[in-house]
């Protein structure tokens, strides 16, 4: 018997089953296909404006910063303001995301822009979020050539552009949107759910921001929810 067979045989003998029982198989197939929601906290069950406000509150509680702009035309100025506030060089790296491509970056003429993944040499990155969850102030980022994963982790400062209408109240709603976009049983290679900047409390439980990932996480919320 190979290792796989040994493990399965051992599980089945412990459960006293053979794996062919129709009712068991049906129960599993139904659950996988029906993916019932369990207990969904009511906290995020709010009208759009209040939901967005909850997202902002929770993200700030997790030490992220948030700014709101009326349209993508104002994104360059918001990025510039953030960089100047921390005396950072006016240079950012982003992926080929369509939305980010459509931002009139020339509105901020001093801003230097490059496109591609990060190799660790960039101080600041800009990505476009798939969505967010108000319940805990969590960003949902999906990996693709448009928004490479390295941009989420290697630069010291991460700026995330989020459409106000993409903020869900709870995780279940965001999961539904992922399923809608990628199909049943499928996901993009990586989904990063990000709640604040990187941190560690491993030395005497003193919380310090900026462990291996970004020291700062800044969300630019665009438009109306």
């Amino acid at each position, binding site marked *: 018997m190979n*290792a796989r067979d*040994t*493990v*399965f045989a*051992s*599980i089945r003998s*412990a*459960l006293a*089953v053979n*794996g062919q029982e129709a009712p*068991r*198989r049906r*129960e*599993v197939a139904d*659950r*996988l296909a029906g*993916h*019932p929601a*369990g*207990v969904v*906290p*009511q906290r995020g069950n709010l009208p759009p404006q209040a939901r967005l406000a909850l997202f902002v509150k929770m993200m700030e*509680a*997790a030490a992220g910063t948030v700014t709101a702009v009326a349209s993508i035309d104002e994104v360059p100025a918001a990025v510039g303001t953030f960089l100047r506030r921390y005396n950072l060089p006016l240079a950012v790296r982003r992926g080929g995301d369509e939305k980010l491509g459509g931002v009139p970056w020339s509105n901020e003429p001093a801003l230097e822009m490059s496109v591609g*993944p990060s*190799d660790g040499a960039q101080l600041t990155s800009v990505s476009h979020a798939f969505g967010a969850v108000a319940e*805990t*102030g*969590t960003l949902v980022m999906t*990996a*693709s*050539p448009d928004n*490479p*994963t*390295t941009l989420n*982790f290697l630069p010291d400062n991460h700026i995330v552009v989020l459409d106000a209408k993409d903020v869900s109240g709870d*995780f*279940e709603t965001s*999961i539904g949107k992922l399923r809608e976009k990628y199909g049943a*049983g499928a*996901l993009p*290679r*990586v*989904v*990063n*759910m*990000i*709640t604040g900047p*990187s*941190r*560690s409390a*491993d*030395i*005497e*439980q003193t919380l*310090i921001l*900026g*462990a*291996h*990932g970004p020291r700062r996480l800044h969300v630019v919320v665009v438009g109306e929810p």
Partner: protein
Amino acid sequence: MTTVATSPRFKDNVREALVDPNLQTALSFVEVNFIARRQEVADKLPEFEQLRDSARDIKNHTLAHLDLYLEAYEQRVVAQGGKVHYAVTADDACKIALDLCRQLGAKTVTKGKSMIGEEIGINAFLEANGVTPVETDLGEYIIQLRGELPSHIIAPAVHLTKAQVEADFRRVHTHLPHDRNMAEPETMLAEARAVLREKFLAADVGITGANFLIAETGSSIIVTNEGNGDLTQTLPKAHIVLASIEKLVPTLEDAAQMLRVLARSATGQEMSVYTTLSTGPRRAEDLDGPGEYHVIILDNGRSAMLGGQFRDMLRCIRCGACMNHCPVYHAVGGHAYGWVYPGPMGAVLTPSLIGVDKAGNLPNASTFCGRCEEVCPVRIPLPKLMRHWREREFERHLSPGTVRAGLGLWAFFARRPRLYGFATGIAARVLTFFGRSRGRFGWLPLAGGWTKHREFPSPQGKTFQAQWQRRMERRP
């Protein structure tokens, strides 16, 4: 290459731990921080208790259908271009990982924090075979510098003071100038970040654990605050996931239920900073990510637990709440338990994995106060399971003669209620008489071990049973 256990010398470990001033300083933080934070965040979520029930039920359902969910999971991983490897024992898992490293020509391996990695002793195994493992979680990095086991499942270096960590950094990071201020956690973290950044970029393979595996999508989930796990799995040529069979959950919705109780129970956060779902290797059009994605599924005694008294233990999501709330853990720390898993969960799991003959002392290290069960997010009846081990230890004649004689004597009286009442009545009167001046005893015959560390209060009046009887008689 299972990590060698010092659990058989538990009592000596405890003796040393109790007089270790650094350890005692470091442990004083555990009690205040973790407990208050968990309570605060649990209070903020009205559905928290319901979510714990839900988490328990999801795990029970998955365990009852584990063969089928494992099949479904495997199918999804393969469909996304990943590979699944099965390991019956710790040795098997180590060998699979080493073979993969060799095929990939790997010299260095970065590692995200993995308790399975500790359980199978992968670092020592890789190192002995010419592959250098580098731990990247700050706490794990520190204990790797010291050649130690983690003393806590989510805070591996919780047993150390910052002065100790500074000394280790100075010893190993010889490039540090003497006048560099290294006394604060900030400066130590900055130093570790700089050193590890190079390692991340140079590594050939990244090994992480998994908090959950999702059958619906064939994904593995890691949860971290530092972002080290993500750099570990994103930058190298290949990502290897080490996971044991009980990590499975059916669907994304089920994972969401589990995640809601995990961070809150573990660190008292609403959500950890990074929750990452990984599904297969880099896709054709991707600009980054690992070229290969492997999952090593470890059994190592777990399928056997599935069929017995300890099945409930397989619900454990390794949050650490039970040890954070354990008075014994607060007093002796994690290393005293002598193996990878400390605290109440370790007291139940360790005998299952390495044998009750080696780890029989651990389930005895409990006051049965019940706090672990009160806070366990998946409602594992830890005290009951520890009691099962005590019974087995007794049945197998592994407990020492004095304990057996004492229990025998007690059983003799307990089976004879009148005699019991008579004897305890006398004992209470004698103790009251001798203890009347101080109200407590600094020493008692036959209880020297107990009174060495604390005083025994002298009885106040009659025995409980006598008082109870009086009270019942007085009732109309």
